[in-house]
């Protein structure tokens, strides 16, 4: 049901963007109607270069996301579990977190040139903070009564992480992954666009430099579709992993 409504929403949005340029609300030259964009997209889909770029982008994106999540979870649990370490690192985290990843572009270009590695570094850097901050919140959220319960029954360190810390932090991790997925996607495309590493972003840059407006929009649509897919997947994972969580219990209307 929700999927149908969502689809309706997307269709409506597409229709709006079809009609607006057609009735002259926005200049058609720079705002091609949906049908033109989709037509262009259909053309792109037939080309090998498109799929190679999609492959590069998806690879960079997922790899960067995976590294960021793994790193964020491990570092977050490690830092969050020890209050002293948490206190000692928090100011540094506050400093590093807002440093715009775009400011690192010259740096990574120097180190790795216009390669996937450069973009990957940007992606990991940006997505890492999303996960880390969430995990830190999650670990801090352990219920003291639950913690006392675990202690009084003498669960060892590993059992505590496995049965207490991890489940408590999991909802936060999932939120972190959802946020990080989008940030990683955005940085993947941006990196490709600005650094020129191979992928959809680079195709977008080329299309822009060539003044090929519909082609550019077609590629942007692909990015958006990735975003929607990422949301669908993380939502489904959320429902499976967190079926016990209050937010999921309330999902079905009473």
């Amino acid at each position, binding site marked *: 049901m*929700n999927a149908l*409504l*969502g*689809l*309706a*929403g*997307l269709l*409506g*949005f597409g229709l709006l963007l079809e009609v607006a340029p057609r009735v002259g609300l*926005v*200049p058609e030259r*720079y*705002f091609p109607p949906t049908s033109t964009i989709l037509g262009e997209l259909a053309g792109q889909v037939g080309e090998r270069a498109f799929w190679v770029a999609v492959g590069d982008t998806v690879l960079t994106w997922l790899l960067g996301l995976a590294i960021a999540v793994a790193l964020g979870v491990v570092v977050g649990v490690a830092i969050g579990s020890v209050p*002293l370490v948490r*206190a*000692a*690192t*928090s*100011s*540094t985290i*506050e*400093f590093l*977190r*807002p*440093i*715009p*990843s*775009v*400011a*690192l*572009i*010259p*740096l990574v270009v*120097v180190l790795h040139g216009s390669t996937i590695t450069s973009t990957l570094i940007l992606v990991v850097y940006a997505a890492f*903070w*999303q996960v880390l901050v969430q995990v830190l919140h999650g670990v801090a959220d352990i219920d*003291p009564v639950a913690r006392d319960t675990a202690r009084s029954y003498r669960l060892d360190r590993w059992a505590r992480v496995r049965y207490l810390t991890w489940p408590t932090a999991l909802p936060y991790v999932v939120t972190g992954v959802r*946020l990080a997925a*989008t940030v990683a*996607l*955005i*940085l993947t*495309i*941006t990196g490709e*666009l*600005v650094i020129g590493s191979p992928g959809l*972003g680079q195709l977008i840059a080329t299309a*822009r430099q060539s003044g090929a407006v519909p082609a550019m929009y077609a590629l*942007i649509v692909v*990015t*958006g*579709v*990735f*975003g*929607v897919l*990422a*949301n669908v997947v993380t939502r489904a994972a959320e429902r499976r992993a967190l079926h016990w969580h209050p*937010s999921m219990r*309330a999902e079905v*209307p009473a």
Partner: protein
Amino acid sequence: MTAVLTRVGLALGLPVVLVAVWWFASAGSTDFFFPPLRTIVEVFGPTWFGERLVDDVLPSLGRLAAGYAAALVLGVGLGVLIGSNRWVRAVTEPVLEFLRAIPPPVLVPVLMLVAGIGNGMKILVIISGCVWPILLNTVAGVRAVDGVLEDTCRTYRIRGTLRWRHLVLRSASPQIVTGARQALSVGIILMVISEMFAASSGLGFTVIQFKDGFQIPEMWSGVILLGLLGVLLSMLFRVVEHQVLSWYHGSRTAQKER
């Protein structure tokens, strides 16, 4: 007193160590792109505390403030609307996720068509990125309003603005604040991005100009300035948060102690 000292020590300890490591590790650096920290510090003052403060830094901050404030209003407003209606939520979610996934740099040309190349466009770019964390968190916060409180309002016939102010917004406020905090760091990034494309002044523009002009120590000083700015804004944010959410932190602590 000792408690305050401990906190200050903990807050400054690691940064001091890291800066020291950087200072000494880079001291003899001949690498063009990794100048000694000493050099960077030396150029920092002359680079930023002159005309640039007025011509570049302040206008950038002004745009950031404007965009951030607008995103706050927009995000909370739309978030409350979407969060309190299941149908609206179902219809809009994929569209929002679609729009959210579009990287701001590719959005810039589109926004230029809408808002020109002046401050308006840059503020729009900042809004276009800042609005998402606020919007999504507001939606989540509004959805999580406690059922018993909801019932309390219904039985006592607390409705209209009183209900919005005292139930919906307040109970969503911890989440909204979380979103607003994320949006702040996003905002700084977008302040830079918005100046990457059509600008003739600004903090981000200047940093990029340094990069393109191979003035590497100046570029580094800009990156550091951006970091410091982030810290400063996040400290400011914390002060505000402390005001707005004192009840929340208090009740959380109380729950933990009980």
